[in-house]
């Protein structure tokens, strides 16, 4: 008897708990969605200026901002910025991935004398955000004549990539060593094992590395701002930062356009992402 009344009592309480949970979730999702929705709608505004909006949203909609973005290039050459960003990101991604995969493979498969010291060093260097040395980078780049050079940026990005080798190393750690050993008994050298066995097995990891090292230059603003002073060399980030305050719709349209590839990438790889994020954490 008492048991039954207990059950009856819990039910409304549980219902209330569930309702509250959903309420909070809805609020949180709204908070995350709203600024993005605001930007997307603003990019379709007809007038372009933020002052003509009523509250958060434009009063009339059209594709004008997008058309203007790609045709009205005298002041703000968005297609040019876009091409620059694409070139820098692609190159950095290709070179950076090659270096990262090599580093991760060596750190995972070889036991050499300075290995632990190198791992500690990369960790400390990694704690040194790249822009903390920006004074020095700036001066060095001036001396090497790499200011206003896209290759200067590409070199910095790709040389910095191997420092984030931990995720890839974790992946190589999970590939069983016994395959390597079998190949070694058959007389394969380590180089051959790397090219013929490890690389094909690591294909998904290589794709992940390519994409994630593409994203960094694609959305970075500090280094391009520091090193690219010439308007024709601007990346999208620097270009959008240079926009006038009245050009809100142009900014919104330009942002939507550059954010889409990254959003697609994140959704496609959200599973990888969770693993990558927890790579630094302790597994139980």
């Amino acid at each position, binding site marked *: 008897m008492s048991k039954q009344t207990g059950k009856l009592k819990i039910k409304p309480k549980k219902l209330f708990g569930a309702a509250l*949970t*959903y309420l909070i*979730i809805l609020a*949180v999702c709204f908070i*995350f969605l709203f*600024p993005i929705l605001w*930007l997307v709608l603003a990019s379709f505004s007809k007038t372009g200026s*933020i*002052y003509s*909006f009523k*509250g*958060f949203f434009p009063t009339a909609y059209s594709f004008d901002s997008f058309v203007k973005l790609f045709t009205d290039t005298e002041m703000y050459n968005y297609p040019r910025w876009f091409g620059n960003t694409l070139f820098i990101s692609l190159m950095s991604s290709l070179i950076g991935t090659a270096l990262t995969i*090599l*580093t991760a*493979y*060596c750190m995972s498969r*070889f036991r*050499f004398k300075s290995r632990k010291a190198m791992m500690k060093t*990369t960790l*400390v*260097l990694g*704690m*040194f*955000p790249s*822009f*903390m*040395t*920006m*004074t*020095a980078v700036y*001066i*060095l780049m001036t*001396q090497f004549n790499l200011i206003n050079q896209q290759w200067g940026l590409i*070199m910095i990005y790709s*040389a*910095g990539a*191997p*420092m984030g080798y931990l995720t890839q190393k974790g992946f190589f*750690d999970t590939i069983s*060593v016994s395959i390597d050993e079998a190949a070694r008994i058959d007389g394969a*050298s*380590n180089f051959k094992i790397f090219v013929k066995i490890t690389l094909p097995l690591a294909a998904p990891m290589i794709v992940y590395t390519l994409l994630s090292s593409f994203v960094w230059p694609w*959305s970075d603003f500090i280094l391009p701002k520091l090193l690219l002073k010439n308007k024709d060399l601007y990346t999208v980030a620097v270009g959008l*930062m240079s926009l006038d*305050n009245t050009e*809100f719709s142009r900014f919104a349209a330009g*942002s939507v356009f550059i*954010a889409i590839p*990254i959003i697609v*990438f994140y959704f496609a790889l*959200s599973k990888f992402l*969770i*693993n990558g*994020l*927890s790579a*630094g*954490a*302790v*597994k*139980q």
Partner: protein
Amino acid sequence: MENSTYNGITNKIRAFFAAKAKAVKNFFATLPQRIKNKFAGAKEILTQGNGKVSASMCIMGLGQLLYRQWGKGITYLLAQIAFLAYFIMKGAGDFIGFFTLGVKQGNAWYGIEGDNSVIMLLMGILSIIAIIFYVVIYISNIRDAYRIQCAADTLKQPVSFKKELSSLLDKNFHKTALALPIVGVCVFSILPIIFMILIAFTNYGGTVVPPALVDWVGFENFAKILTLGQFAPTFFKIFGWNILWAILSTFINYFAGLGLALLLNRKCVKGKTFWRLFPILAYAVPGFITLIAFKFMFSYGGPINQMITSAGGTAIGFLDIDAKWTARLIGLMVNAWLNIPSGMLLATGILSNVNTDLYEAARVDGASAWKQFVKITLPYVLFATMPVLISQFIANFNNFGIFYFLRGGLYMDGYFLASDTDLLINWLYNMSIDNNYYSIGAAISIIIFIVTSIISLAVYVMSPSYKQEETYQ
């Protein structure tokens, strides 16, 4: 309530820290012995090495040639000649230039081409690197000669040059593969750091830029930052706010992310993947876009102020020069918006690994949901994410973007080239990039680095992911 189930975890953590303390103690206890072992090898070569090894000590490669190891001998000999040529023609001058930083003041008016101190500093660093490189090769040359001697004494065929070269694709493949990444990291990460550290001890910057001569000034820049009227008040004000900011933002982001993950993990929530898309969407938008958008949102013409004015109020300068705490609060909120999603993803990943038996046992014992959270979930998540938490703290400590975009380039009374929301990293940018105070900026970098690296290295070495990595292979 029965406590023994939960004590397991706290005991584990206690044991973990005890083990770390022991490991650190052990490290220092065995240090003298390990140094002794290092020198034992050198002593052996010095006492046991024959005349041919000594020949290699005088001229690199000579011993190898005497043993008829032509390939190796000639390579070492060429290295010796190349280094000597470099050192006599250029290296020695560069090395001295490193200490003087130039003695001849240039003057364009009289057509005198003076010394460029910055180039001299750079070339000086390169000459020191060349010397270190030479010493490493020199030692490997002696070791190699001794190894040949040992092989010859036991009538074994010494390893040929060709074989050693081909081992670079097999046994020593890591040396080949790591060469390029290491050079890249050295040039683009380590060289700037060395350069920056050295600049912090010069008077480079302000009016002292080439063609004026730069000089070494020792710790003067640090003394200026910590004591001088111009810099010190700004430094301490910014440092205090920087610490407060790092703690608050890390705390908010971490626990909000954990809370969100727990909320979405509840049994009554249907369509978890769908709800998770919203934070991921926010996470995926590049940071600079979000930051510029938020700046628009809080600007005078922005939607919030429009709503206020249309409701009959007066526009509020959220990010104005006198908006100290409003601006700081907006900074914290915007940073939370940007970073809670990644915290949520991380916590979701960690929570999927929690041992569910513990909850079952706790439920049987009648523990409340809150008690389960405090006694099981929280210790476990904290334990597992400690390294990540630390790196988040450091990332927040050096969070350049937030206030650069929200209130960049604002200089205030009472602050030297900074505003009351600026963090040390923003101050550093204002000083060195916008106003040419290179040496002071470099000194600030070093202070930030010391504070952050001590925290991170200590925690990393103590964490099991470093110590017990072999167990997961």
